Structure formats: structure tokens, C-alpha cells
């Protein structure tokens, strides 16, 4: 059944044909002023690569500057702006045309969609909400599909092997056991770890796969987007808040507990309780920033080194920067796995603090 699923999705995606598009007026946008300036072209390429885009641009054929061909496929654009507008992003023609949909006009400017009037002037008061399937959303779908297929096959392999894993199960079982024995149980405890295992495993595999995909030349940067890491950290925060036991809340507003009389605790609490309350927000916030900053910084340095390869056009400089970029790429593989592990482990620590049971205090 997994095979039919894969085959049907491949069929669906091949129907968005890959085409080559002639692009005349790309010249006056980028190349006449900056065509000879290699560094600013590299910089604009890097920033363009790090951003999200409304079409999936695989590569472009710049062998003839007057006649650049782009290969890729467009993705649908869904806008909510007093009504639902739905069209394919190929109508924008890479940002030059104004698209008309249900009486309103939209233009694409550096990845953001603005509402314009018929001649192309921006309407400042309108704020269209952009729900489109951009490149990142599309890749999230594909990665979830890959995860689903992988874990489904693992599930099947347990049934076929009669209790022992074969195939995909044999590959994934050490990782899952590692997450359970070294991340979940030491931090959450034997009694309650089962509830959280689903989320921990999902987040571990998802962040690891997404970071690995970010290193390919496809130009998909999912964890590069602070909104994605914000959602992951938000889920951790919501799970800690909603599955916390009473001791967790008591510990927040009464950290010292029974050890001191309440007269002595009051001046300390003026300082301590705001810090504890802020700590509940700051801990998931630091999760978000850590993942985002590590991956983005890695990508920027990697792409700058590859760009440096073109700036030095001689044998020594280019080969040295290639070697450096290669070594840094291997380090990025380690960082991808490490960041996934750190995110999962810190989430487990926060869950553990939410369900901790005080065995030495009789009051609770």
C-alpha cells in the first residue's frame, strides 16, 4: 500500500510540468547595473536562496544573459483579502505582471504579495493575508509524507517479522530506543513518559530530516524560517502548560516551599516569582532562537564560502575555499543532528519539570 501511495504522489507532482520560460525583462531589474559586480550578485543570490518563494525554482540557464531560462514549477497562491483568491503563481511571471482575481489586483514584490490597483500602484490600506502553498510549505508536506511512509513501513516490518524488526524497522529501532532510554526516561521519569513519546519522536525525526533537506542544493530552508521554529516551540510550550500537574504551578508561585517561614520568603519572592513566571516564556523562546540561529548561520556561512569560490577565480583560492566549504558542510551534518537532539532533549526536560512529583514534601 505504501508503494501505491508513493506512486500516486509522484504522478501528481509530475503533472506540474517542468518548463522553460523565456524572460526578457529580467535584464533591466538585475543585470544592467550590477551585472559586472560579482559580489553584490552573490549577495542577492544568497538572500534570495534563504527566503521563501512562491514557485519552486530548480535552476536557471544563464548561458545567454538576454534569454534566461528558468526551470521549475509554480505553486498555488491562496490569499484571503475580503474573499478567497486562488491562482497559480505562474500568473505573476516572476514578479513582473499584475494578476487580477475577483476584481482585485495583486503584484509580487520580493516575495511579498501586495494589493495594487489596475495600473500597478500599491494600495496601502489593504493587507491581504497570504495562505499560499509556498516552497517551504510544499517541502513540509513532502517531508511529512516521507516520514509517514518510513514509519509505516517500520510498523509493517514488525508485523511481518513476527516481533523482530526487519528492513526499515531495523534501521529506525536503535534511534527510537535511544530517544526513549536516553532522552525520555531520564528526564520525564518512568511513570509518565509514555504520554510524551509521540511528540518527542515526531519532533526529533522532523527537525532532523528538515535540517538535512536544508543542506541539499534544492534551496529549501524550512528551519531557516523563524515562523516554523516558533510553531515548534509553541507546541512544546502548550504541551508543558496543559499537561502540568499541580506541583508545577505551585512550584512556579512558591519555589521555596516548606523550607522557610512565609515572612522570610516574601522579600525573596518579589524578585524570584517574576523570574520564574518569565522563565516559562523564555525557555521555549530560547528553543526557537537556538534552532533558527544555528541553522541560518550555518547556511549563510556555507553559501558565502561557495560564493567566495567564484570571487577568487584562480586555482589556489578557489580550491581552498572549496575545501573549507566541504569541511563546513560536513560540520553542518553534525549540527543538523545535534540541533534535533538538543530540541528534543530540552523539550523532554521541560515536560519532566511539569510532571515532577515531590516525594519529600508532605504538604503536597
Amino acid at each position: 500500500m505504501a508503494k501505491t501511495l508513493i506512486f500516486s504522489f509522484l504522478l501528481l507532482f509530475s503533472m506540474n510540468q517542468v518548463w522553460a520560460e523565456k524572460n526578457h525583462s529580467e535584464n533591466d531589474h538585475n543585470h544592467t547595473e550590477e551585472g559586472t559586480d560579482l559580489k553584490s550578485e552573490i549577495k542577492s543570490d544568497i538572500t534570495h536562496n534563504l527566503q521563501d518563494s512562491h514557485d519552486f525554482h530548480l535552476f536557471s540557464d544563464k548561458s545567454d544573459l538576454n534569454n534566461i531560462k528558468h526551470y521549475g514549477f509554480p505553486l498555488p497562491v491562496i490569499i484571503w483579502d475580503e474573499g478567497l483568491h486562488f491562482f497559480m503563481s505562474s500568473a505573476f511571471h516572476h514578479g513582473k505582471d499584475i494578476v487580477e482575481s475577483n476584481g482585485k489586483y495583486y503584484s509580487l514584490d520580493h516575495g511579498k504579495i501586495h494589493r495594487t490597483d489596475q495600473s500597478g500602484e500599491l494600495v496601502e490600506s489593504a493587507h491581504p493575508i497570504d495562505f499560499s502553498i509556498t516552497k517551504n510549505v510544499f517541502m513540509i508536506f513532502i517531508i511529512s509524507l516521507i516520514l509517514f511512509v518510513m514509519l509505516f513501513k517500520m510498523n509493517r516490518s514488525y508485523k511481518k517479522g513476527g516481533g523482530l524488526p526487519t528492513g526499515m524497522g531495523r534501521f529506525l529501532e536503535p534511534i527510537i530506543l535511544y530517544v526513549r532510554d536516553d532522552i525520555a526516561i531520564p528526564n520525564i521519569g518512568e511513570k509518565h513518559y509514555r504520554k510524551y513519546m509521540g511528540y518527542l519522536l515526531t519532533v526529533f525525526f522532523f527537525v532532523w530530516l528538515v535540517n538535512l533537506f536544508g543542506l541539499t542544493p534544492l534551496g529549501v530552508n524550512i528551519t531557516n524560517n523563524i515562523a516554523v521554529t516558533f510553531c515548534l516551540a509553541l507546541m512544546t510550550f502548550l504541551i508543558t502548560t496543559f499537561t502540568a500537574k499541580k506541583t508545577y504551578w505551585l512550584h512556579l508561585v512558591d519555589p521555596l516551599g516548606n523550607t522557610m517561614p512565609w515572612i522570610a520568603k516574601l522579600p525573596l519572592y518579589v524578585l524570584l516569582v517574576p523570574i520564574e513566571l518569565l522563565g516559562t516564556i523564555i525557555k521555549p523562546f530560547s528553543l526557537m532562537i537556538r534552532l533558527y540561529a544555528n541553522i541560518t548561520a550555518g547556511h549563510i556561512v556555507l553559501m558565502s564560502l561557495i560564493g567566495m569560490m567564484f570571487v577568487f577565480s584562480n586555482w589556489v583560492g578557489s580550491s581552498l575555499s572549496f575545501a573549507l566549504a566541504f569541511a563546513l558542510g560536513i560540520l553542518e551534518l553534525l549540527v543538523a543532528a545535534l540541533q534535533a537532539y538538543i530540541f528534543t532533549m530540552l523539550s523532554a526536560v521541560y515536560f519532566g519539570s511539569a510532571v515532577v512529583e515531590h516525594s519529600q514534601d508532605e504538604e503536597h
Partner: protein
Amino acid sequence: MEIPAIVGAGLAVIGVGIGIGQIGGKAMEAMARQPEMYGKLQTAMLIAAALIEGIGFAALFAV
């Protein structure tokens, strides 16, 4: 290209370097003392290094 921002980022990264260097050094010492705990020490070292590096990157992004 503000100079104070660049100097501040440089100082923050110096702090990160010192911190991770100390952790690495102590981890090496501990591994030399007890070679059978090599796996656990390496795991703990990487965790602490990643946490400190997170702060360093957050400082870098202020530039």
C-alpha cells in the same frame, strides 16, 4: 556597518569560545580519568556546547 555592533558581536563570540573551550577541556580531563564513561561524557559535552552556541548565535544576529 556600525562599529559598536560589530565589536559587541565579537566580544560575545569570545565569551562563547572561552566557555566551550573550558567545557571541552574539562571533558577531556574527565575522559582521561575514567575511559569507560567516554560515551556519556561526550554526550554531555555536546549538549552543553550546543546550549552555549545558541546564545552566541543570538548575539551574532543582533548585528
